[in-house]
């Protein structure tokens, strides 16, 4: 518009000349039409919740990783050539023989300005990066955000987790110290345990018998080039899919599978994300500046002989180390036709992580099949409403925790004055019993919470007020829930186990595919056998029309019984003006399943399919 005025030579418009920024933007826009994209993204609506920021923590700690890693590559020498360290500090290293990789690590820590800080920021960021990825995945899993249409993005995310683990492990090994060398030796052992190709694979990786003089340069290439390159590409895909499919949202009045309720990206999220980036970078710098991490000069340059007490991997590999420590040795090394099959290594180091990642990778498809669900989902589940899924997540967490504790068995033994053998046996039992117990308890807790929701919706909050009727009957007054509360507790559907066609058709002929159907039905029964039906509108109406209750409510003073809380806004821009949702309806009258179609309020964005 400004340009048009400029061309017309309008005097008034001439006075308001476009600013330098405006001109630059215009220059760019004329050549790239980027304005369309900016406009689209700037008006993009995102729902808001703290748990949606876990992925953001991962993204920003990755940026910190790239920045600090760039600094480190300037001073790191990825070579296994033997050199002698000359330097006054640390005194314990002076004059020692070591690889150039180790020497340059110590050198950059003590002689390069800011080197120690950057190394420590990099390592802390790596721990936080993977930690936030795992927490983010728990959020996605527990809220069912992996369901259609986001299965692909779940797989992309899982791939990134595996890449992040690989990035962590390759980076951890680079300084070529005793601690990481021990870890590398375990990897070597695991690789060699793979039947038939193991020893060939090990020689391929190390270029000779372990440790050789090839592995550090190879890990370096993987660590600074291949893995981060793949990660950046996948992050771009992950974010693109997130924008394309729009972010899921927690249930609430006015939110449906056909809209997104939240704030626009500009200015709200741009401000929030920028702020969060600086908070994250600040916390990571603070940690790097005040908390020592991975002091490799304490462990010394790598030498295959020593293994010091307290040798553990970084936290995200602890579960594999723990599984290895829990696995009994004798009796699991099978010799078949002259070939050794070391199940004592294959089970904990290959099969256990294999089960974990296979389960995570196939879960969205398994669950969809067991639910018979082909719908798109944009409203997230409350974890309690899917008891089996939530219980599986908790069971996985418990199994992870037991394995991680097993990897720290020596520290537990010394710090709590326990016998290390006793710890091992307790954890061996717990590895099997713990997840089952956690599954059972979590499932029951979820079902109980659902029942409590039902109870609350139908009968209201206990008010503690006891009323006596003229007839002598005592009744406790219950305060009805406000419409938002009712919506939250009744908006979901409770899936039923699959129903399949009978084994015989009408003419008594065995039906093809029955057995497969029956198997899926069994899985479905496992998921949805125990269920609590959310309160229906009819039940709500019935619960509220008890003569006595109405009588009490009529008699109670204003502000206690009656729906004092008419339409309530559930945060910014979420209630539609004159909408059809529960926000404006009396609980139980119109039923909570009214769809959010129609009136598209400010800050609401229709989903692609719903535009009609």
């Amino acid at each position, binding site marked *: 518009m400004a340009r048009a005025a400029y061309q017309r030579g309008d005097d008034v418009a001439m006075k308001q000349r476009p600013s330098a920024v405006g001109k630059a933007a215009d220059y760019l826009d004329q050549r790239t039409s980027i304005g369309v994209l900016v406009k689209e993204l700037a008006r993009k609506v995102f729902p808001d919740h703290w*748990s949606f920021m876990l992925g953001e923590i991962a993204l920003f700690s990755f940026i910190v990783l790239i920045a600090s890693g760039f600094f480190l590559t300037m001073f790191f020498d990825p070579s296994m050539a033997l050199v002698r360290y000359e330097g006054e500090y640390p005194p314990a290293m002076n004059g020692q023989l070591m690889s150039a990789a180790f020497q340059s690590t110590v050198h950059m*820590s003590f002689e390069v300005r800011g080197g120690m800080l950057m190394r420590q920021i990099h390592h802390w960021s790596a*721990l936080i990066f993977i930690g936030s990825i795992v927490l983010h995945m728990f959020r996605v899993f527990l809220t069912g955000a992996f369901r259609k249409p986001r299965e692909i993005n779940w797989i992309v995310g899982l791939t990134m987790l595996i890449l992040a683990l690989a990035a962590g492990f390759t980076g951890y090994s680079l300084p070529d110290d005793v601690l990481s060398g021990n870890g590398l030796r375990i990897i070597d052992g695991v690789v060699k345990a793979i039947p038939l190709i193991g020893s060939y694979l090990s020689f391929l990786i190390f270029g000779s018998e372990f440790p050789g003089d090839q592995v550090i340069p190879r890990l370096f290439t993987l660590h600074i080039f291949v893995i981060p390159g793949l990660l950046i590409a996948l992050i771009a895909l992950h974010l693109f899919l997130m924008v394309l499919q729009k972010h899921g949202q927690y249930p609430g009045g006015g939110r449906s599978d056909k809209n997104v309720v939240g704030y626009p990206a500009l200015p709200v999220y741009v401000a929030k994300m920028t702020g969060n980036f600086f908070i994250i970078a600040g916390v990571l710098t603070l*940690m790097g500046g005040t908390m020592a*991490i991975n*002091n490799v000069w304490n462990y010394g340059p790598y*030498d295959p002989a020593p293994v*010091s007490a307290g040798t*553990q991997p970084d936290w995200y590999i602890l579960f594999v180390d723990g599984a290895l420590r829990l696995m009994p040795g004798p009796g699991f090394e099978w010799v078949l036709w002259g070939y050794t099959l070391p199940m004592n290594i294959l089970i904990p180091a290959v099969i256990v992580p294999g089960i974990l990642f296979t389960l995570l990778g196939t879960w969205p498809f398994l669950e969809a099949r067991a639910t018979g669900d082909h719908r798109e989902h944009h409203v997230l589940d409350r974890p309690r409403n899917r008891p089996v899924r939530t219980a599986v997540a908790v069971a996985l967490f418990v199994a992870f925790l037991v394995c991680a504790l097993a990897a720290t068995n020596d520290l537990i033994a010394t710090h709590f004055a326990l016998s290390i053998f006793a710890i091992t046996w307790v954890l061996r039992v717990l590895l099997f019993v713990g997840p089952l117990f956690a599954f059972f308890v979590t499932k029951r807790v979820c079902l109980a919470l659902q029942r409590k929701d039902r109870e609350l919706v139908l009968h209201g909050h206990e008010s503690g007020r006891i009323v006596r009727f003229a007839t002598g009957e005592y009744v406790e007054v219950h305060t009805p829930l406000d419409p938002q509360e009712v919506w939250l507790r009744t908006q979901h559907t409770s899936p039923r186990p699959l129903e399949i066609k009978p084994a015989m058709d009408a003419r008594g002929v065995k039906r093809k595919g029955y057995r497969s159907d029956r198997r899926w039905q069994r899985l479905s029964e496992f998921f949805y056998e125990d269920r609590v039906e959310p309160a229906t509108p009819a039940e709500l109406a019935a619960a509220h029309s008890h003569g006595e209750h109405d009588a009490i409510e009529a008699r109670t003073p204003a502000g206690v019984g009656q729906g004092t809380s008419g339409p309530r806004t559930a945060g910014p821009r979420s209630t539609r003006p004159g909408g059809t949702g529960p926000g404006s309806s009396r609980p139980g009258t119109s039923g909570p399943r009214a769809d959010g179609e129609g009136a598209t309020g400010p800050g609401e964005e229709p989903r692609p399919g719903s535009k009609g």
Partner: protein
Amino acid sequence: MKALAARRHHRLAPVVLLLLALLTTGGVYAALAPSTAKAETVSTADIETGKKLFQANCATCHGANAQGTEGVPSLVGVGAAAVDFQVSTGRMPMQMNGPQAEAKPPQFDKEQTAALSAYVASLGAGPAIPTDEQVDPTQGDPSNGMALFRTNCAMCHNAVGAGGALSEGKFAPALWETSERNIYQAMLTGPQSMPVFNDANITPDEKRDIVSFLVEQREGSAGGNALGALGPVSEGLWAFAIGLGLLIGAAVWIGAKSS
């Protein structure tokens, strides 16, 4: 010289030479051999006091003449260093039966400990208490000490001496608080589960290097708080407790106004 040369074929010459050789060897040995130098001069009175203390406090288990009883070792020949280590760290007299005798505030003062050591040393020769010079960390080389520690000690005591677990509830203690003299004595005498590192295995100078390395570790970490020097497990715990704790706190704060 002429006189000497004249008599070199004397039939007693080999005998004289042999005597001279023996004298030289003996003299050199006396000068260079690891001295069983006594830190304090021991008198018979000390030994008598030590014997009384022993009979009152130790004989129940170790026997009236320190000959040992079933399951309890004889102390004949363990030397003053062993007694000084066990008693001055409070491990002996043992408080209770357990996987291993644990350190506690010492029960005897310096003189009583010295008397006990003198008494046990009088029963049979054994390693003596090291001199102050032998355990002086400033005279050691921490770099060599670390290399030795890494190959001989770190598998139980952790890379910087933070301690570690052994089987059946036994453990290698942390060495942060252990005195230089006690570290040296432990290597020399191998208390409890610890192996003996005698002077042929790790020479006195090397022992001092190790002491020097361990003392240097007490100065703390260059990178900030050492977090117990326990390695990746404590680092992971802190990453979650402090790092993710703060970041999730910030996320809750940022997202607080909505949903």
